[in-house]
């Protein structure tokens, strides 16, 4: 692609990451396009929801006619296999490839091949440490900061200015975990209060999170707030099992977590829910199509953080008290015309399918 100057197309939807974000433009190709999604790991709720969103969005009237062929493959946590799959789709003559990278590095070769063949490669969610491709993500550093700031504000409102904060980290070695943790820690440090941050590793997994939070409570007694990166259902479960008083909690956007906030916010569970949305895949697909049509695109597209605090939870709108806990509530992005809500794909019952 050529590096051009902005502004880009559809800025409502494709918001540039920052003022410095450069813009890219591919030569316009006639549609419809062949688009592939190369997923890595499959086997957790988020990825399943992401794949379902991708499938549903490919059928969405707004884009259906622009897609000639659509394929999703999952390669597991296997870097060579993912690189191979991307290269294979380039070889097969696909026009755009949307991917969640298994590692933030190592894509130089496929980027080079994609450029050579005028293929649009769009990493999202786990993005690459490079500015050579167009990427779609939420701002993880900002997410960490907002979580921490929310906790600080709630504590201040309670008059607490010092104490232990429990930070639940994600998968070690992952850049998302790193960025969020930096955001959290720098915010607490900047506050100047006497905060002692206790970190435990929950791997973004409900079960592990529940166990490590329970352990931390057993050892440290009480925390003033819990800032969890993921596995938020596990945080709530551990707090409630331990009889820990409800305190401000920051976490992701699982339905179960939001249900708990809505239910117990009166008792002190002042929660904030910001999640990485599986709906990102739809925006990445849309961005790919837009790039193929020859539009000017920001290199790094920032998807706004879907923030909801205990103040704005509303049953049936941003959480569903009668639905299972495990799906991610934030799925749709109206400015982008991505209107596939979590319940609409994750809460179909068998009956609905008929």
């Amino acid at each position, binding site marked *: 692609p050529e590096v051009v100057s902005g502004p880009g197309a559809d800025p409502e939807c494709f918001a540039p990451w920052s003022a410095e974000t450069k813009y890219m433009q591919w030569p316009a190709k006639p549609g419809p396009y062949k688009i*592939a*999604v190369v*997923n890595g*790991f*499959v*086997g957790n709720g988020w990825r*399943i929801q992401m*794949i*379902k969103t*991708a*499938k549903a969005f490919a059928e969405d009237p707004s884009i259906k006619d622009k897609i000639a062929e659509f*394929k*999703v*493959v*999952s*390669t*597991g*946590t*296997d*870097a*060579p*296999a993912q*690189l*191979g*799959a991307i*290269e*294979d*789709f380039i*070889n*097969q*003559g696909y026009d755009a490839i949307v991917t969640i990278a*298994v*590692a*933030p*590095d*190592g*894509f*130089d*070769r496929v980027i*080079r091949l994609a450029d050579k063949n005028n293929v649009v490669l769009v990493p999202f969610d786990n993005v690459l*440490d490079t500015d050579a491709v167009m990427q779609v993500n939420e701002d993880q550093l900002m997410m960490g900061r907002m979580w921490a700031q929310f906790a600080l504000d709630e504590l201040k409102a309670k008059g607490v200015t010092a104490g232990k904060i429990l930070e639940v980290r994600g998968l*070690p*070695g*992952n*850049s998302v975990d*790193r960025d969020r943790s930096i955001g959290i820690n720098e915010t607490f440090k900047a506050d100047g209060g006497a905060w002692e941050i206790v970190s435990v590793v929950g791997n973004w997994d409900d079960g592990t999170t529940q166990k490590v939070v329970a352990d931390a409570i057993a050892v440290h007694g009480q925390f003033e707030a819990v800032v969890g990166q993921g596995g938020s259902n596990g945080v709530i479960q551990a707090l409630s099992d331990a009889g820990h008083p409800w305190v401000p909690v920051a976490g992701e956007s699982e339905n179960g977590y939001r249900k708990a906030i809505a239910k117990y916010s009166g008792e002190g569970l002042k929660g904030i829910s910001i999640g990485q949305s599986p709906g990102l895949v739809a925006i990445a697909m849309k961005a790919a199509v837009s790039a193929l049509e020859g539009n000017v695109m920001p290199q790094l597209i920032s998807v706004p953080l879907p923030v909801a605090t205990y103040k704005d939870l509303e049953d049936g709108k941003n959480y569903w008290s009668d639905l299972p806990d495990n799906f991610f509530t934030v799925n749709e992005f109206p400015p982008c015309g991505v209107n596939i809500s979590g319940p609409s794909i994750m809460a179909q019952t068998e009956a609905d399918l008929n």
Partner: protein
Amino acid sequence: MRNARSPLAATIRQNSGFLGAIILLLVLYLIYNLLHPRGFSAALLIQNTNESVAIVFLAMAQTVPVLLGGLDLSVGAIMTLTNCVASVVVSGSPQQILLGMVVTLATGTAFGVANGLIVVYGRLQPIIATLATGAIAVGLALFIRPAPGGTVDDDISWALTNDLYELVDTYGWFDADAAWFSSFAWVPVPLLIVIVIAFGVWLPFKHTITGRTVYAIGSAEGAAYMSGLNLDRAKIAAFTLAGFFAGCAGLYLAIQTSSGNADITQAGAYTLNSIAAVVVGGTSLLGGVGGAIASLVGALVLRVISFYFRIVSIDPLLQPLVEGLVLLAAVSLGAFRTLRVKNQLALFR
């Protein structure tokens, strides 16, 4: 049976599993190329070999301890460790790059030696000793590279993951467009690397006394000892070679991705896949029968199967299920032998 006294007939009879795997591979790969829009092209071959190198090396690494009658659960971890080491040291001037590669391979080899020493002098079961050393290797990898990244030289990354033409062109050894060169300029470099290591390291090893001792130990350790073979040396050599091959995998992975990544799940998945590859290649997990070349073929069979998911249409949410079923079917192929067995004692070993 007795009449088949020619060495060739005996070889065929004794390697039926391996031959089966080769035929399976050829058939699968042929059909893949027929179905692929760019089948039978050099680009496709390069892509396919690139993506297979790491698992092929790892399958070869796994084979040697398996021949001993053990399992090396640390091969994936050694690959990860050397991958991280390479991401630090393989950069700079050509001499430094070369030195870095040597250091990387030496790291893998040294870790293999350590495995061997623990197994031999600690008298621990390989499977459990390497489960533990594997954790240590991943830990070390995380120390070296707490987050993915690194600085592997770009040129070498490009040159070694392409065909010979690009290799020559990148380094300008001679005129890459020379007429004499054109007939094999298309050969993928990764393919050459694998062939050179497999036939340059494994085959000679197999024909040394130490190599044969590895087979003897896997088949009957007591008999090997009584026959005056040096068991300790062979065991250490086996794990050393495993470490070396795993180091090759890690080095190539680093070159291929120009970076290092201490990914624990990837390490685990690669270890398990290496065992699957060994089994599909026809090497017995009980030891004594098989070989690294067979595992190379086994690894390729598994890889080619995964290629199919990109050209056939299946529901992406059913893909993991289909993958699992195919794996189960592939490893159960050998079971048809057991259905034919008339003397049930032949089932036990």
